[in-house]
């Protein structure tokens, strides 16, 4: 018996508000945390919020485009995490800390 009609009867607005809350939390994390890696995690949180919105609309509109977008967003997020962490490691090697303010010293 496949999954069907599982959590749909709460209505679309619940999901959207949840997503907005998640997004805001991620944003606060990005804006306020000191640690670069935590900031990266907050970005992932924001991306997840967006994913949730995509999936919600995709489901309620019976349209698969949203799910594919989520698939792509996940890929990009993973790529971004890879590069971001590589940079964080480089920063750490130089300063022995991963505070965001060390990025001020990166001057081309």
């Amino acid at each position, binding site marked *: *018996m*496949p*999954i*069907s*009609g*599982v*959590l749909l009867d709460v209505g679309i607005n619940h999901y959207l508000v949840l997503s907005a809350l998640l997004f805001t939390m991620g944003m606060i994390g990005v804006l306020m945390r000191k640690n670069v890696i935590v900031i990266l995690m907050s970005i992932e949180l924001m991306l997840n919020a967006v994913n949730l919105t995509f999936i919600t609309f995709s489901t309620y509109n019976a349209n698969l485009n949203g799910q594919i977008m989520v698939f792509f967003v*996940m*890929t990009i997020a*993973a*790529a971004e*995490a*890879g590069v971001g*962490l*590589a940079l964080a*490691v480089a920063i750490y090697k130089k300063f022995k800390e991963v505070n965001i303010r060390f990025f001020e010293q990166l001057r081309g």
Partner: protein
Amino acid sequence: MSQLIPVFALAGFVIFFGILLVLVAALFGPKPKASKMKSMSYECGLVGEGQETTKVPVKFYLTAILFILFDIEIIFMYPWAIAYSDFIEAGQGLYIFGAMAVFLAIFIFGLFWEIRSRALEWE
């Protein structure tokens, strides 16, 4: 209703069971007085040297990054594999094969580049 709930229920049950076990161990276990030597990190009975935690090679994290990237590429193959026969039946077998062939070519190039650049070497 749904089959999601059992998954959730099982997860809850397992967590409950785990907490139970930990509690049981905490309740029934003897609690002798802790001594300094005993609560030190275990290093085969010798007195610990250096820091408790240690720097580990960057290699691990590089492996993890490469894993993520390849993992996603593999995940992309799953829907492809699922729809493969549908495409073949619709007479588009070569199209779907070619689509993945390009992707796989990139994948293989990446893999061999990593191997050649010695990013995967462990001493």
